[in-house]
């Protein structure tokens, strides 16, 4: 009975307070009409007698002022108390209120960078224990402050942010620790710090003297940036003479901040930390207006294999681009010097041949913002083969550049002739249309996935005009073995010597995935391709590179590749032919080929490469040398003359980049 009197007294007291404030006759008003007073009154009542109904009233008043955590606490106490008192009605109300309130409470997770040690983290001024770092915690909606600080390598790093949480919001805040005095560092140094995987790595981004002078001991303040064009020094003999400026390498923290300085201001850094997408980040950093990037490279490649094919291929390429304006164009030129005495040539008693092929490409593109396009053209010319082609592709940056789809189309027209014979006298045409589509996905801060597919439509006669296909009588054909020598083949073959004849159309389908993942100091690149075509050839190809940054200037990588394929549906080890008695002529198969790449085979490539940067990593002119060497072993399961081929090839390159 006393319990109910106390509850009634609380309700009446709250109502009288409201009535007194309104100056009107006492009316029954909601306790939440004046939440602050409601909380005071209920708190006093709870101190007198802790009743579950009073707790629920206080919870509703706390709810009205956004104190959801406190409201949840009172509701949970009310539920436990009601259960203990066997007050099922009150318990039911408390339980229902808890179920409605729970999902409304916002949650926040404070993520620290990896490798961050001895970090002091405060939320609304209160210290967050280390075991709560990265753990999702409930908090009230509204404004909150986050402050973090740490020290590494003698440099103090800090982070400050204000966040505003709404009801039901789940927020993850990445703590980005930056040097305490950001105005002393360049845009590139800050970019480096933002990309560092640990504080120790971040310290390496900062110049030694700036790092040591950036350390702020207890009680000191950071040096003020000087007015434009005037030096600042902590020493006693400040002077306006630029020649007497103390450089960063000297002990005294003198900083000259001339007009148009490339150092970031505190405002630019604050802009960086508040940026919500990539575009906003870009706008925060000083823009290089009118800057161009010029790249030039020269390569020499060589190839030799166990079938006596040797190729020497020098090439050059160059490109110019404007990262700010979004345009680019470039081109390349190469020469293939080929000498060949393969079994196919020897089997026809043909002499080894030497040939020179020249090829050139050009490309140009424009991408001023989220959308862009690229066009390209190519030409390849040798005495008996001419190929001309071109294409375009369109790309877009979607979902804050986390998804980048691309579509493209390429067309080439090939003219296939015979050596020493003008194209006007003899030629075949081969037209290839290729449709490609794909998208790159940013999977995580360290992983990217590319999914892509191509459809190639080949129309025309791509049969080799030099490839004669041996024919055998049916009995002999059944006894021919893979790898049979050309001497024994020549003895057993029929006198008819038809040229290769391939189908006049080929539809080729391929899908591929390329996964790239960055570890600390190394990148793994994995590729897989699945292929099928209308000639019923299928193939699977897997490729792997593991690129390790041994130092700032040296990168090494192993390379492995595996390809397995079946043969096309008209491929035969030995083609059978018979004489038609009515016409007394050989009846040869309509489709016939001796191309080992159309036969069942596997290929295994193993090799590696290295790249050495000859200039300092931070210099505007970059010069590098690269070397890549691979060995390819091909195993043919159903081919004449040879059952395997081993090839070695490599490329030595020199590249330069100027800004």
């Amino acid at each position: 009975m006393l319990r109910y009197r106390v509850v009634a007294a609380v309700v009446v007291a709250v109502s009288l307070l409201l009535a007194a404030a309104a100056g009107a006759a006492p009316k029954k008003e909601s306790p939440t009409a004046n939440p602050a007073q409601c909380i005071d009154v209920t708190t006093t009542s709870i101190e007198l007698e802790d009743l579950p109904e009073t707790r629920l009233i206080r919870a509703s008043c706390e709810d009205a002022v956004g104190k959801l955590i406190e409201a949840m606490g009172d509701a949970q106490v009310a539920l436990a108390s009601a259960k203990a008192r066997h007050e099922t009605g009150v318990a039911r109300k408390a339980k229902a209120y808890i179920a409605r309130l729970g999902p409304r409470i916002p949650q926040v997770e404070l993520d620290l960078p990896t490798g961050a040690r001895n970090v002091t983290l405060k939320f609304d001024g209160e210290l967050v224990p280390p075991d709560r770092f990265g753990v999702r915690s409930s908090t009230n909606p509204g404004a909150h402050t986050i402050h973090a600080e740490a020290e590494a390598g003698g440099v103090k790093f800090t982070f400050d942010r204000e966040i505003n949480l709404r009801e039901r919001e789940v927020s993850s805040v990445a703590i980005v620790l930056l040097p305490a005095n950001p105005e002393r560092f360049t845009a590139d140094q800050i970019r480096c710090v933002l990309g560092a995987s640990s504080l120790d790595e971040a310290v390496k981004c900062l110049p030694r003297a700036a790092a040591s002078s950036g350390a702020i001991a207890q009680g000191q303040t950071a040096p003020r940036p000087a007015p434009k064009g005037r030096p600042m020094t902590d020493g006693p003999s400040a002077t306006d003479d630029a020649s007497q400026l103390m450089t960063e390498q000297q002990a005294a923290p003198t900083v000259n901040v001339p007009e148009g300085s490339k150092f970031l201001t505190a405002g630019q850094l604050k802009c960086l930390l508040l940026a919500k997408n990539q575009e906003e980040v870009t706008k925060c950093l000083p823009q290089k207006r009118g800057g161009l990037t010029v790249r030039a490279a020269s390569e020499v490649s060589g190839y030799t294999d166990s079938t006596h094919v040797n190729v020497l291929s020098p090439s050059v390429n160059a490109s110019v681009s404007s990262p700010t304006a979004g345009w680019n164009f470039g081109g390349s030129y190469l020469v293939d010097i080929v000498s060949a005495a393969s079994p196919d040539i020897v089997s026809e008693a043909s002499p080894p041949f030497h040939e020179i092929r020249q090829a050139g490409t050009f490309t140009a593109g424009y991408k001023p913002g989220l959308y862009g396009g690229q066009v390209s053209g190519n030409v390849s010319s040798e005495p008996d083969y001419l190929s001309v082609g071109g294409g375009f592709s369109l790309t877009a940056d979607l979902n804050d550049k986390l998804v980048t789809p691309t579509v493209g189309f390429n067309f080439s027209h090939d003219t296939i002739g015979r050596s020493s014979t003008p194209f006007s006298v003899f030629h075949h045409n081969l037209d290839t249309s290729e449709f490609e589509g794909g998208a790159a996905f940013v999977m995580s801060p360290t992983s990217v996935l590319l999914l892509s597919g191509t459809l190639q439509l080949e129309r025309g006669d791509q049969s080799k005009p030099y490839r004669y296909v041996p024919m055998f009588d049916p009995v002999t054909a059944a006894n021919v073995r893979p790898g049979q020598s050309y001497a024994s083949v020549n003895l057993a073959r029929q006198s008819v010597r038809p040229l290769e004849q391939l189908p006049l159309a080929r539809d080729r389908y391929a899908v591929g995935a390329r996964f790239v993942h960055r570890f600390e100091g190394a990148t793994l690149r994995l590729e897989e391709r699945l292929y099928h075509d209308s000639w019923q050839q299928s193939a699977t190809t897997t490729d792997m590179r593991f690129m390790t940054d041994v130092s700032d200037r040296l990168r090494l990588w192993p390379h492995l590749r595996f390809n397995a394929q079946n043969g096309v549906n008209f491929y035969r080890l030995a083609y059978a032919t018979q004489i038609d008695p009515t016409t007394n002529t050989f009846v040869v198969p309509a489709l016939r080929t001796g191309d080992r790449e159309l036969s069942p085979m596997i290929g295994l490539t193993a090799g590696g490469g290295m790249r050495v940067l000859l200039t300092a990593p931070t210099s505007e002119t970059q010069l590098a040398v690269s070397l890549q060497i691979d060995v390819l072993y091909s195993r043919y399961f159903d081919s004449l003359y040879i059952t395997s081929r081993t090839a070695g090839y490599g490329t030595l390159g020199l590249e330069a980049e100027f800004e």
Partner: protein
Amino acid sequence: MRRALATAAAIAVLASATACVHVAPYERGMLAHPTMTVDDVSSSMDEHVRAVSEGASGGLSGGGGGCGCN
């Protein structure tokens, strides 16, 4: 082959779903590393050897050929 293409399509759908995980702009520093490009990093000789020694073509870096080299 149809099963392989259907599997590839399913992977594409899953990948596009997981790409909805947001990576903040200041978390993308590693993605700017030169080895993290999704473009083909092989040399021109590498591409040429593949084009003449493998029956397959396309998928990730487009078709090869254009020289009747094999």
